[in-house]
């Protein structure tokens, strides 16, 4: 039983089935885009050019990255917001890609985000996929990038959930149109983020688990004042900028539904607003640059053009890796 398509004809058939709503076919395509075997590179190229030719770029999906410390309740909140979005809009199709870290010892991973997303209605318009970050440090994996290139052709909204704070947000920022940061109330998270300079990354701040009104109010004021403070120490920051930041601040509770409707409306507006979208090719390139710098250091930076040419020829990072293998002492994405 092949778990993924292995030839061009069956792959194109899977695409057709996936477009008509067959989830198993879509899931197999996702597996193809995660697969690390060299033979899959050519198949992916065919798939991507087929999709590019047959699906209007303007109907491609909007990417939202959701990040925050473990325990902030990201998965439950995403589940609740998706449920609300699906109920509000009878046509919207949503995919969630939940990325969790792998064990550095065995390479295996425990992907438990699904336990927090429970709903049965509108199942046909919702797709949830768990992914391991492999042995990559940081919040998103190498194959996250690959899978996003696929999912954008099938869904209106693609939510990428990642753990941790630090490097990963930089990477995710490069890939998505909008970043949400989920925090716990009164946990001191915001102070940590201020210190680390991370406040400049998220587009929307969420204080989750505001199950009690008192907690919600306290958190709101605490975060609002740190944002103001942050804005005022930023060179050239104006009052208007800080006002904009405060506007994108939500208090939510999955337990009693606080703020969930509002957040869902906010996301709907973003999805509909063309000005919120950055060009995917640009995102792709900036992710690519970041990736080359991480992977090949100064050498990569100096030879970016050369890398870029190789990349546009193949549209595959794996391919680059192979091509430039001789410059590397080791490969982080070695499959064995």
């Amino acid at each position, binding site marked *: *039983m*092949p*778990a*993924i398509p292995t030839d061009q004809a069956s792959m194109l058939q899977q695409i057709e089935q996936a477009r008509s709503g*067959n*989830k*198993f076919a879509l*899931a*197999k395509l*996702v*597996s193809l885009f*995660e*697969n*690390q*075997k060299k033979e*899959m590179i050519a198949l992916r190229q065919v798939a991507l050019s087929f999709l590019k030719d047959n699906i209007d770029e303007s109907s491609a999906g909007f990417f939202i990255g959701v990040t925050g410390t473990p*325990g902030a309740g990201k998965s*439950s909140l995403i589940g609740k917001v998706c449920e609300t979005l699906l109920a509000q809009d009878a046509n919207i199709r949503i995919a969630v890609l939940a990325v969790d870290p*792998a*064990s550095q*010892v*065995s*390479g*295996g*991973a*425990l*992907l*438990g985000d*699904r*336990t*927090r997303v*429970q709903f*049965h209605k509108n*199942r046909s318009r919702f*797709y*949830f*996929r*768990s992914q*391991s970050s492999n042995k990559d440090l940081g919040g998103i994996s190498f194959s996250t990038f690959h899978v996003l290139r696929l999912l954008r052709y099938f869904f209106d909204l693609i939510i990428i959930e990642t753990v941790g704070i630090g490097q990963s947000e930089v990477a995710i920022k490069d890939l998505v149109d909008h970043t949400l940061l989920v925090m716990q109330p009164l946990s001191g998270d915001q102070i940590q983020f201020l210190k680390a300079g991370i406040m400049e990354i998220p587009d929307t701040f969420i204080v989750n688990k505001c*199950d009690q009104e008192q907690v919600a109010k306290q958190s709101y004021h605490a975060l609002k004042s740190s944002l103001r403070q942050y804005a005022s120490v930023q060179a050239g920051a104006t009052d208007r900028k800080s006002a904009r930041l405060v506007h994108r601040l939500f208090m939510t509770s*999955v*337990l*009693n539904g606080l703020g969930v409707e509002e957040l869902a409306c906010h996301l709907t507006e973003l999805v509909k607003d063309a000005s919120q979208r950055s060009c995917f090719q640009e995102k792709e390139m900036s992710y690519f640059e970041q990736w080359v710098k991480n992977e090949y250091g100064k050498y990569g930076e100096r030879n970016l053009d050369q890398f870029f040419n190789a990349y546009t020829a193949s549209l595959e990072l794996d391919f680059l890796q192979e091509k430039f293998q001789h410059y590397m002492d080791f490969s982080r994405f070695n*499959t*064995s």
Partner: protein
Amino acid sequence: MENQESTVQYPGAHELDKKDRPWIFRTYAGHTNVQASNELYKANLKKGQTGLSIAFDLPTQCGYSSDDLIAQPEIGKVGVPINTLDDFDVLFKDIDIHQINTSMTINGTSMWLLSLYIALAEERGIPIASLQGTTQNDLIKEFLARGTYVFPPDASMKLIVDMYEYCLKHIPKWNPSNVCSYHLQEAGATPVQELAYSLVTAITLLDAVKARKCFSEEEFERCVGRVSFFVNAGMRFVEEMCKMRAFTELWEKITTERYGVKNPKFKRFRYGVQVNSLGLTEEQPENNAWRILIESLGVTLSRKARCRALQLPAWNEALSLPRPWDQQWSLRLQQILAFETDLLEYPDLFDGSPVVESKVEALKKEALLEIDKIMEMGGGIDAIKSGYMKAQLVDSQADRLSKINTGEQTVVGKNKWTDGVESPLMQSADGGVFKIDPEATKKTLEALANTKQQRDENRVRAALAQLEADARSEKNLMLASIECAKARVSTGEWSQVLRNVFGEYRPPTGVEGQSLSLEDGALDEVRNKIEAFVAKNGYRPRLLVGKPGLDGHSNGAEMISVAARHAGFDVIYYGIRLSAADIVNSAVEENVDLIGISLLSGSHMEIVDQIFTALSDAGADQQIPVILGGIIPKADHEILLEKGIKRIFTPRDSDLITLVNEMMDVIDSSLAT
């Protein structure tokens, strides 16, 4: 046989030179439907049982009526189904509920079942003040180990406090909750963890009662006196006896120091016991009879720490639900111990023993350290929310299993002296196991339909509206619930109203951040196999683990998940209370190589059928192999394998790495076809 009537009185210290009274004899029972369970209770009482211990089926425990889709495979499987007051009337037919002491193993919906009991008494014209018994009602251990929670921790705690407030004033002989260390031991707790976590539970409870400020000082002292415990006793019976003495001493310390209780009567550690099922083996099950006897000694030998009530599992519990004869055999053990031996004639046998005293001191010291640690973390509710206690238990369980696997801990018939003559006990026509008549659920569903047809719908609507209003305004919900009971509201309807108000809780699992110490040759072999798979196929093998149905015993599923990750699988852990459609939808979306489901409720036949139907509906027929774990009677294996299950793992297969290895074999042979 003297003094049996007076078991509700407790001997004071001055009475210790008199002969002790026997404990209450119970058997945990209930199955099929209310008619069959009623017959069983009457028969058990005739055999000399002195209290009832009611087992409810999973839908009743989780707040679903029998006509709910998720309930259907589970009706009457692990206990009796209760939908409305009409069911309760049949369940207690010809039983004097003002005379009998009734213990109900009910948690998430305990307020509902108590309300039904009160409504039954009132409709029968019995003064409710005469009712005596216990609702188990310990939600902390449900979140940690047993899994039949319904509402989030804070709301659950509110319901428990409501019950304490109501009971103290109206049913003074009722124990509104029973702090359970029983299930903690089943989940792998060490004696120290058992002491610490159950005492933390009691403290959390009493702190919540105190915070409501609904009692005078005198009333609060009586309320402390109502807190009772439900304890486990395992094979290390000397240590277990010491654990019980440590419990009594620690409880006295806590009630005196933390709550300022003065009356010694209210400081007494009152507890009932069900002895350990975890240590019972599927292999050579007849040996379990001796294990049950030995475990009983741990909680009866020391008079100072003797249980108030005892219920024993049956010798074949690791195989299936017990038959009436199996339960009778266990009851006879209790009767022989209490009435044929001289056990009850002496004062405490261990006072002054330096060995016992030092062991008790050591246990107390360690337990107090752990209690302080949890209280510093914010107390029981916070330690549930953060997953701390759960993770500790998963660790202990992994440790216990490793010790059995390496032979460090001897289990006769399992890892030593495994050859033996087949037991004639297993050779009767029914294969030594109990089966439920599938036709019997019809009776339950018909009764529910009848009640729904005959009840006054206006009264139902008004009662449910009142319940919702009271819940939103944070009033005590007992009165509204009793009115619901009388109006013939169903279990599912009562629960749904409160779910809407309080939400439904999914606690953190024990799987995150766990590690196992299983580094040996066998592990290397599996890892090599997996690395070979990755090299060949370009991805890591993906496994989906989930528990369909309502049984909440998630520890087995969690252990497998942790072991598989440890070996190199990508494991999608999907948790509990899932429908077959949920599981299959996830397996398809995740494009997994293997589905692992775990079931302990006895509903495996129905659920396996549902899984295969759903797979074929999703176009994944024959494409994703399915394996099954849990308590699956041997007689069912062949049928399940014919249905298409690739492997069946039972408690016998406790070597996790061997198990993961076999899972890789299933995947490899499936990919090869």
